[in-house]
């Protein structure tokens, strides 16, 4: 077992309560979503480098080829730009491709097809065609792969009209959001965090969808509001739990979809707390944090009682080294300290 797997295994998540239902890991929940979607709709296809190899994309595609055949789930050449275009063309013509990447960095090779084609086709041809495709990628963090294998790129894509961006944090959401993403008639990016793959949770059986663009309150509180998604909200939730012991009650909002943003849920919470922390797995500058912080200054200015805080990555490429990574990535302690500071301000 390589060290990073050990690291991921050692992560502590709040254990789900089995009395609430069936428990599944995050990766298995995704796997189940694929199986349901492919069963349900013969136009769904799954492709990407190594989707049918023994490691099966963190296990998320395990067993699918045996069940649905190599025509519907298949490996691809290492040629991201053209395969993104292939997915776009397939989606324009009756298929629902899910294009998987084991790192988001590789999507950067395909920005031309994603940003300048897939996202715009429906608008450009006045609604004649749509592009129901999913671009899936596993976000990395803290496993020594460095600047070219750990980028969280949601911030780069946030401004692109026509895209949707999903970033689940729980197994149940991962399943329900993926089913929604596949059913959606637009290009949807789904970013799943590597560090969540082994997280267990109660996951409903069968087919269900979690609407894109709807956040959820993970924890109620009145002292401050934390907004974010994916692994960042997991860390923030842990920080909030600790802060509760100090008498600080944070409201934790898991956006689940960072584009479109659920503005109503943030506004409602700010109405109570007047204090906002935005967390993200990507760079703080010009990304998800910046957008939500700016929204606060623009739309909810009169609700704000203190400056907005963002907790995300500094304006520095990701280092590869273990020690530097500890300084680079915000951890629960750091998030907790910032939240505490804001609550007391």
């Amino acid at each position, binding site marked *: 077992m390589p060290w990073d797997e050990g690291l991921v295994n050692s992560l502590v998540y709040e254990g789900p309560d089995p009395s609430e239902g069936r428990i599944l890991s995050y990766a298995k929940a995704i796997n189940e979503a694929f199986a349901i979607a492919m069963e349900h709709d013969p136009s769904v296809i799954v492709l990407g480098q190594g989707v049918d190899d023994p490691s099966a994309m963190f296990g998320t595609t395990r067993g699918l080829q045996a069940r649905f055949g190599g025509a519907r789930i298949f490996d691809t050449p290492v040629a991201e730009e053209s395969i993104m275009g292939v997915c*776009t063309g397939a989606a*324009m*013509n009756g298929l629902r491709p899910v294009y998987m990447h084991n790192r988001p960095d590789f999507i950067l090779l395909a920005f031309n097809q994603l940003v300048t084609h897939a996202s715009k086709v429906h608008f450009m*041809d006045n609604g004649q065609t749509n592009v129901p495709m999913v671009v899936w990628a596993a976000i990395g963090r803290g496993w020594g792969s460095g600047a070219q294998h750990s980028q969280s790129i949601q911030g780069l894509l946030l401004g692109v009209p026509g895209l949707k961006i999903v970033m689940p944090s729980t197994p149940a959401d991962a399943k329900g959001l993926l089913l929604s993403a596949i059913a959606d008639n637009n290009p949807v990016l789904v970013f799943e965090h590597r560090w969540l793959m082994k997280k267990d949770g109660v996951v409903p059986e069968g087919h269900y969808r979690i609407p894109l663009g709807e956040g959820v309150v993970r924890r109620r509180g009145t002292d401050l509001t934390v907004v974010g998604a994916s692994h960042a909200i997991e860390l923030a939730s842990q920080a909030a739990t600790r802060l509760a012991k100090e008498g600080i009650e944070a409201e934790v909002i898991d956006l689940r979809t960072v584009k479109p943003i659920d503005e109503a849920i943030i506004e409602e919470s700010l109405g109570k707390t007047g204090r906002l922390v935005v967390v993200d797995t990507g760079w703080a500058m010009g990304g998800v944090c910046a957008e939500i912080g700016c929204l606060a200054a623009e739309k909810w200015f009169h609700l704000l009682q203190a400056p907005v805080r963002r907790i995300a990555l500094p304006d520095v490429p990701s280092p590869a080294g273990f020690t530097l990574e500890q300084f680079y990535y915000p951890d629960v302690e750091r998030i907790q300290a910032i939240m505490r500071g804001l609550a007391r301000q």
Partner: protein
Amino acid sequence: MIRYAYQGTGFEGWEERLQALPPALCSALLRDMIRIRVIEEEIERRYHQDQMKTPIHLVIGQEASSVGFCAALTREDLLYSGHRTHGAYLAKGGDLRGMLCEMHCRINGCAGSRGGSMHLIDKRAGMAGTSAIVGGAVPIAAGAALSLKLRGSDRVAAVFLGDAATEEGVVSETLNFAALKRLPMIFVCENNFYSVQSPLATRQPARDLHRWAAEHGVASVQVDGTNVLAAREAALAAVERARSGGGPSFIEARLYRFRAHGGAGDDSKTGYRDLEELHQWETVDPIRTYFDFLSRTQLADDRQRDAMYQAAMKEVADAFEFALASPNPEQKDLYTHVYSD
């Protein structure tokens, strides 16, 4: 100085093959080329009136390719193209009014005034998509072909690309993918030797585009792109291969654009290509050479040809009138179709 000389042999030796074709088809090919020429010339003539507020990329000189290749496709086959889209759109059966409305930025344009001349699309005619990005439509066409194949259709997907597109890595990637998956797909590479004002020689070493494509595992040929029959024949073979599960084909058509890269008129006088080169290619004007060939073999005469011009001119005048009378979009129209329901 002629940098890129015409090296074809015109219709020499085509008499027999012509005789094998239905006369109606022979004259339809002429008519379709004339129609495109007339439409293009009218667009060109009016362009300076500034009613068409969109860039244009005329296909004047390249009509044999548009018409010849599309003649091998059915209405249901899917066609994609790049920025130089007028010819493909018209030859595939796109609606002229929709095109001119689009070029006048009217709400009933074929892309609702969001596309402009580079995004002519008419799904009813199988004109399925375009890209203003060099090479951008190529993998999309492969995706269309993949969908046709997986859904068990016997339709094919074709894509027009320019010589410059072969420099974009995505075309190499797509050739590989198409060969790997034996996609029912046709790459039609219109090699007119220029990318905007840059000659092939400043962009590629001496190489043969069709041989380069062949090394990707795609069946490839080169044809005389001024010869509408040669274009059609190459396309028929490719379509047959695609429909019978034989996989993709690449056709390099050597031809020449008679006008500037974009806009109205020729721009050779700026010096990037020699007028002599243009004039040589004008001697093999695809419409004239084909008409001459048809008249030599008694399959067309001046009267018929003139009637084709007349009909096209009338059609285009009507369509312009229609476009100019069409309504502009309103503010609310900007916000539709950002997302699909």
